[in-house]
């Protein structure tokens, strides 16, 4: 009798553990995320372009300061050379973002780049190599979508003459998306963690409103220094 109870308890425990490995039930909220999202009109409010500076500039480690000293913008300006940006750079500037939902995968479009957020908990395949978009896994924490991204290559989250380095084996970005009750406002809290370059996590908060604006691609023309 005791043995049976033990087996039942063990099975229950194992099922509970294994269950967390499988995909979560797609929430209705996940479908409601599908849209284009834009920052609200400024109406005289502070610009978001340098909010990333406020959050990060005083937190640089000695290694990051050294990175800055060695930085040559003419060799590294991803914007001017039309190179792909780090996914972690996206949320410093309050640009638009777009969600497309296929239940197992959320496609997140920003900076004219598509990032796949795996909602089924899958790990990178064996032939995966770290890159600027990293590897993103998402799950629901109550009514909040949590996206955790790792496996970034070394890069920057802000360029110009005073770059903010980010990326490498220890770098991680955690995004927490929460919809308003009327589903028309999206609140985003972003935490960037990179102990090699920052003495503390870089925390930022953004708000987006649902948009039906028609957006389109723009060719990037490389600039010559």
């Amino acid at each position: 009798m005791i043995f049976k109870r033990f087996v039942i308890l063990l099975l229950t425990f194992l099922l509970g553990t294994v269950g967390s490995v499988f995909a979560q039930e797609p929430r209705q909220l996940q479908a409601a995320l599908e849209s284009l999202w834009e920052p609200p009109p400024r109406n005289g409010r502070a610009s978001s372009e340098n909010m990333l500076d406020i959050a990060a500039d005083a937190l640089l480690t000695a290694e990051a300061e050294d990175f800055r000293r060695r930085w040559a913008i003419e060799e590294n300006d991803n914007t001017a050379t039309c190179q792909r940006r780090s996914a972690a750079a996206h949320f410093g500037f309050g640009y638009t973002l777009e969600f497309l939902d296929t239940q197992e995968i959320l496609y997140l479009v920003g900076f004219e780049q598509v990032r796949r957020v795996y909602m089924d908990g899958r790990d990178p395949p064996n032939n995966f190599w770290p890159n600027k978009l990293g590897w993103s896994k998402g799950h629901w924490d109550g009514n909040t979508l949590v996206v955790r991204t790792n496996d970034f290559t070394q890069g920057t989250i802000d360029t110009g003459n005073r770059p903010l380095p980010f990326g490498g084996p220890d770098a991680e970005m955690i995004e927490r998306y929460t919809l308003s009750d009327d589903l028309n406002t999206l609140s985003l809290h972003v935490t960037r963690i990179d102990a090699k370059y920052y003495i503390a996590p870089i925390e930022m908060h953004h708000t987006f409103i649902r948009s039906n604006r028609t957006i389109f691609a723009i060719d990037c023309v490389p600039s010559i220094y």
Partner: protein
Amino acid sequence: MISKWSLLSSLVFLVNWESSSVFAQEPHPLQSVLQGLWVEDNISGTETLEQRRFISVAESNLRDPGEVFRASYQANADTSSCLMAGALAGEAADFEIVDQGETIDLSAFGRTRRVYMDFWLEPPQTFELNGLGWSTARWAGDMLVIRTTHFLEGAIKSGERPLPFGGPIAQMVERYTLSEDHNHLTVDINLIDPEYYTFSLNVLHSYVRADDIDRDTTCVLN
């Protein structure tokens, strides 16, 4: 499973931190070397190319509220003769550093700013926004990094072309680097004020150690 991983990551991350409010930094040997009188390394005494560049960039990055500030600014309306801490960016004034161990006193423009060497120290509840703000610092290698927040709105440059700065979100980050012979000091100042400027403003001033400096008379607060 995820929570276990998160917990483990958080612990590894905390241990890897260079510093935090819990793990205070050890005193840096260069802190006492910084003490002394410093004058701008500019024999001509005229506005340097770097200062002109700084002002030009600031003016071209002004947002609408900044233009409104300029239009309504009246230098004589402010009867206080005290300049704000950020004014050191627009004008490389002589200054003095006094090392007190847990704090550094930085005197310029006839005012003394106290810099707390506990980077994560928050201002007391009784603290009121003012022109000097709230300064905390830490060492990043051999560089002293000072972060100043809690500024009252003011001007980092007065006169006919004033430059606004300050308010609840404004932040100044100063980076002090000594030369190998310890007789030269570069001060890199980054002013971040999204209310008034599209991008952050940066300026670099060079100083040499001095036996005496021109001390502005103590300013009179309004």
